[in-house]
């Protein structure tokens, strides 16, 4: 399982990566925004994307829309982990085809639960 963690804050990426390692996922890669993540996604064979929303360059929302519009990448599960907590935004993310939405600040168990749920659904 190859996972891409996209967040502009290095500490946040470390936290997510450590939580993933705790869950047994060690093949994790990092990108600091959507613009950096996009070529990595196209060249790599990622199975899962965890992304922040609010990032300079390309936001997580733009990245999600781009992934869903791409023939090769459109089935990749995407989990948004973000501080954006407006109802409109959550609805917009759902409509854009997000697989899960975790609001910051989050607990380890919340993230684990969402990831487990996504994998259970995706299979």
């Amino acid at each position, binding site marked *: 399982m190859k996972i891409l963690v996209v*967040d502009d*804050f290095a*500490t*946040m990426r*470390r*936290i997510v990566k*450590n*939580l993933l390692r*705790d869950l047994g996922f060690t093949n994790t890669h990092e990108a600091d925004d959507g613009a950096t993540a996009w070529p990595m996604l196209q060249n790599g064979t990622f199975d899962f994307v965890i992304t*922040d*929303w*609010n990032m300079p360059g390309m*936001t997580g929302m733009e990245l999600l829309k781009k992934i869903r519009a791409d023939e090769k990448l459109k089935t990749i599960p995407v989990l948004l982990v973000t*501080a*954006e*907590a*407006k*109802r*409109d*935004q*959550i*609805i917009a993310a*759902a409509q854009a085809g997000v697989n899960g*939405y*975790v*609001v*910051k*600040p*989050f*607990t*380890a168990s*919340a993230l684990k639960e969402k990831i487990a749920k996504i994998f259970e659904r995706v299979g």
Partner: protein
Amino acid sequence: MTEQTAEPKRFATLLKQRAPELLECANKNNLEAAVQILIELQHARTPQLSSESDVMENLREKAQLLHDNICNGQFESALVNLQEMQNVRDKGLYQEIGRLTRALHSAITNFAIDSQLEDEASELTEASDRLAYVSELTERAANRTLDLVEDSLPLVKAIQLEANVLKREWQRMVQREMTAAEFRTLYWRLDEYFQKLAADSAVLSGNMTQILLAQDFQDLTGQVIHKVTGLVKEVESSLVELVFMASQVEAITGIIAHGNDAQRDATPDETLGHGPAINTGQADVVANQDDVDDLLSSLGF
């Protein structure tokens, strides 16, 4: 317009009438109302001049009269003309001061430091709320980290101490300096140690993860501080406008200053996202992960 003769009387009446009100406004810092009263009074004093736009026209007219009177040798009339011109200038001055005071007042209002507005939190109040949120998050994270480290240290210390004791005992056993009874004691002590080691290292590992998670504040505080920095820049540019306006005070003696009211619109840039929700009590903001889950499941997730 009143007649020239009735004018001082009317002014005096109005002054007596309005003075207490003016004083009250000044005491209550109600500049807008005070300025209105001043304008009214000034208007009563020199009713022949109606508005600011007429000032130049009036001056031109009077200057022409002055010129004609001097040419015709009518010095008394010329002096009256000069006094009239002075009145025109005074009126313009008062009007300009009034305008500047209003502009100043609205600039201050635009600064949104009026904390008396209860229904609408000003931007600066919100900024201090945001900074309070930063300090709260960082404090909580620091305390949590320290607590976990303080919980972990005794465990590590105990493991270390026991390891040293056991190492010495083990050494004695290797060198066959140990009695059978002592060996039996060591045997069970080792067994106990391994059990404790397994349990304690699990606790330590859990603590490490908790410490790691406690660092997540940096992401949130970074975003909040970024927003407040933006506001500070905005306030700075408003201040520059105020300074510019103050510099105009010098220009008003020439009655040539033009209005430069600080019209600031504080439309937030939606493309940058909202950042973390500080006030989760708002209707359009979810309070926690459960709310997100409820919202998503209501959408068929």
